[in-house]
């Protein structure tokens, strides 16, 4: 009997939860705020769905009701992607080691 592709996706999902569990526990507590902002940015990979929705025009018109929701989602996700990665970068740039101490 053929295995439903859904089962494969479910396997990816469950295994990723475990990967996430172990990876996140190894994140140092001092970087928990950047962790939140970067997870924010990567969860906006949902933009993939938004692009498909926006480009799915059966007829010649660019704006159908479904593509409009796609364009809206693209805008929201883009705010998150750029905002999330940039603010993470900005925060991480501030974490410095003790260097000079020439006293």
């Amino acid at each position, binding site marked *: 009997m053929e295995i439903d592709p859904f089962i494969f996706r479910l396997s990816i999902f469950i295994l990723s939860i475990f990967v996430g569990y172990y990876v996140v*526990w190894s994140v140092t*507590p001092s970087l928990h*705020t950047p962790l939140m*902002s970067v*997870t924010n940015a*990567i*969860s906006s990979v*949902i933009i993939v769905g938004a692009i*498909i929705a926006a480009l799915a025009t059966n007829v010649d018109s660019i704006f159908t009701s479904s593509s409009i929701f796609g364009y809206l989602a693209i805008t929201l996700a883009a705010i998150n992607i750029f*905002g999330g990665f940039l603010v993470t970068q900005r925060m991480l740039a501030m974490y410095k080691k003790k260097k000079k101490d020439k006293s």
Partner: protein
Amino acid sequence: MISANLSAIFYLISGVLFILALRGLSSPETSRQGNLFGIIGMIIAVTVTFLSVGNFSSGFAFIFIFMILGGAVGAFIAFRIPMTAMPELVAGFHSLVGLAAVFVAISAFINPAAFNLGFPGNIKLASLIEMSIGAAVGAITFSGSVIAFLKLQGIMSGAPITFKGQHVLNALILISIVVLTFYLCSSQSPSLFWILIAVSFLIGFLIIIPIGGADMPVVISMLNSYSGWAAAGIGFTLENSALIITGALVGSSGAILSYIMCKGMNRSFFNVILGGFGATDQSSSSQSKEQRPVKSGNADDAAFLMKNASSVIIVPGYGMAVAQAQHALREMVDTLKKNDIKVSYAIHPVAGRMPGHMNVLLAEANVPYDEVFELEEINNDFANADVAFVIGANDVTNPVAKTDPQSPIYGMPVLDVEKCKSVLFVKRSLSPGYAGIDNDLFYRENTLMLFADAKKMTEDITKNL
């Protein structure tokens, strides 16, 4: 146009890059590289999507316009936001992820053919269930995050809003979501889909309003987790492994952070979610409070104590950030270090308004991260330190949490500040902290209270050193 198999492989690659992005955060040295992996993963995912749709119509131009528009807004916010406002920013960003998930689910429902899910009125059952989950969780994330944002921003009072029958109402709405999903699957009726989304918006709103402002660290982490599950739900609908992997990563990340925050406050997750505990709950503080003697001093005394110390531990709290005292504090520490005094910082898990917030604030003030320690790392050092300098923290230093089983914070992990030879406590008054209880530390023999604004006091001490 590239084949579906090839694009699936590229999505897998970007999923792996996202895992590496989180892995990089295990230490500050590798973190910047990790962020780069995340950015590359995102670029791959977006490019592959364009190539796989392959329909280079005029719609492309519009996609770029909207992407640049959103990107510009995002970049502007990212560069302008002050670090004290990170919790608001993250809550705001969560709401956008939630809303984007809702929008994608809606367009998949209206035009399922574009996603290979069947046809309007005849969508594949599994896809419809996944779509409903994505839309419902997305909607809850959106409205919940909006409330969290308003509470953090101070537009809405941080006081918990409770009313009679609240839990019953929430339970009924949650049941109705399940029932609606069931009927939606059998009838494929668009109106049921819209009702489902509306009800989910409502429940997100109702879940967050009873939670007090000081519990927001848990709420933000929880919403972080929800935004992940919403993305995963959409990922199942779109049969996209990058989204499924990311959703699972973000979902478990948020869940772990909520757990850490709850543990830092010694409260169960359900206790926080059921709400009602917060700023206004001061009944425990109004009990008979005999005037106990307190030693108070000025900047001169504090400077004298620190000058004669060989090691000092700083205990910062959110009050320090409110007073914008972190730069003044760093200057004071620099002066101490010049006098060959060993200085380290002790951070409680719930210091600040979100996980790791205090570390970011200190990093912004140019405090090297290898002088900053977590509770477990530094707690044993208090006994050997000469001076503990508590600035803007309160409940997290209260020894009552270890000694008095009657106390509401009993069992909460606290910093063993009282074991220091002397404790300097910068505070405006003797008023209790968020937990509404008196801090026993104020009345200890070795405690010197410094009643002043945190920033001003720190500057004065530096002058006197």
